[in-house]
């Protein structure tokens, strides 16, 4: 949380700094379109990178790590193929064609599900407390926002619950709320009095306060 130093934005930064970054980016997307994993599994895979390695490497190296992990875990590539970087046989799944790229990228629906699938437990204005839970699997409740009291700013509607989606692929519908936390609630009395952080919380992260 502390000690990271200045942000250091690069002026006129290019979209990609190296050719390998372009390819790593595209490989990730193209492999993802094969449908063997979902975006939450993608994030979860990257989260397995050993912390020291994660901090010492660049962004697309994180993507590369996650991709290699998923390719083997989801059975598209065998561990020995990856080790030798040599194919032993066909992949068994048809590649995304260039003609299908625009359609694949212009999806209108991702994680959102129908609102009437589940009745919301909370509404705007409710005081809530995030649970003091620290799962070992994938979760989207940051540590800094656990066991904190906030106010529901809005109900975004029903979405695929990320934690379960990453673990099992099941699409469990849950309401997702923007919850407002005052800076002082999160960081103590030295935080700015007019600073607030909004965290998008799935309903399972919350209980009434």
């Amino acid at each position, binding site marked *: 949380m502390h000690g990271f130093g200045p942000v250091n934005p690069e002026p006129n930064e290019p979209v990609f700094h190296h050719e390998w970054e372009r390819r790593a980016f595209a490989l990730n997307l*193209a492999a993802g379109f094969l449908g063997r994993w979902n975006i939450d599994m993608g994030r979860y895979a990257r989260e397995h990178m050993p912390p020291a390695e994660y901090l010492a490497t660049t962004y697309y190296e994180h993507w590369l790590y996650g991709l290699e992990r998923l390719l083997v875990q989801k059975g598209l590539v065998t561990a020995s193929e990856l080790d030798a970087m040599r194919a032993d046989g066909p992949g068994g799944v048809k590649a995304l064609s260039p003609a299908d790229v625009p359609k694949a990228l212009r999806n209108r629906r991702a994680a959102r599900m129908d609102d009437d699938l589940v009745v919301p437990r909370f509404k705007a204005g409710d005081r809530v407390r995030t649970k003091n839970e620290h799962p070992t699997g994938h979760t989207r409740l940051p540590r800094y926002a656990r066991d904190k009291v906030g106010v529901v700013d809005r109900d975004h509607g029903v979405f695929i619950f990320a934690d379960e989606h990453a673990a099992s692929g099941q699409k469990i519908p849950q309401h997702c709320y923007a919850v407002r936390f005052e800076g002082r609630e999160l960081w103590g009395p030295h935080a700015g009095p007019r*600073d607030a952080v909004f965290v998008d919380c799935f309903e399972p992260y919350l209980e009434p306060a």
Partner: protein
Amino acid sequence: MSDHHRHDHDHDHEHDDRPGPHGAPLTDVQLRVRALESLLVDKGLVDPKALDALIDTYETKVGPRNGALVVAKAWVDPAFKQRLLADSTAAIAELGYIGRQGEDMVVLENTPKVHNVVVCTLCSCYPWPVLGLPPVWYKSGPYRARTVIDPRGVLREFGVDLADDVEVRVWDSTAELRYLVLPERPAGTEGMTEEQLAELVTRDSMIGVAVVRATGRRGAGAPPSEASR
């Protein structure tokens, strides 16, 4: 193994995989990516032309110019602005900026009393259809760690000094909602066309780490490879 090589001399060509004027062999990560692509192509799992199309889309076709046009339209068209704030996804879709990592949009309006700034502490979530791919600083430790705890300090680094009575709202993109800041329209832009206004709107202002200036430099122009601030 990370691909960091520093140069003392000035050059404007980008780094690619050729052992060109530097005479350096390919780095580990370059080799690894090439080998992985070959492996996946050999297995019929990826088509290199599809890879090219994916790259081309985000390198040349989708970028902050899209978001700038949304902002400019909101500034000149009050009915659009109302729609934008009420149902951001639908309003942005009117302009055609739909798709991956922008399926569920929320637009946040900056006012004289409220300044919004967006971060993804957990990874790098960012509204691709309106802003393109995120810059390195957005995806890196310092921004991700510090913005939630010291937003005013981070903003000062970007040259934004907010008065004490301005409320700062930091939005951590922890779910699949994607946030776009609607920056304040600066004074001195009365009578400008939508196109002229869009030229002033920078990517950074739509993340919330900059404000728009009436005499701003061209920062949101297409293609994204030309201007990225």
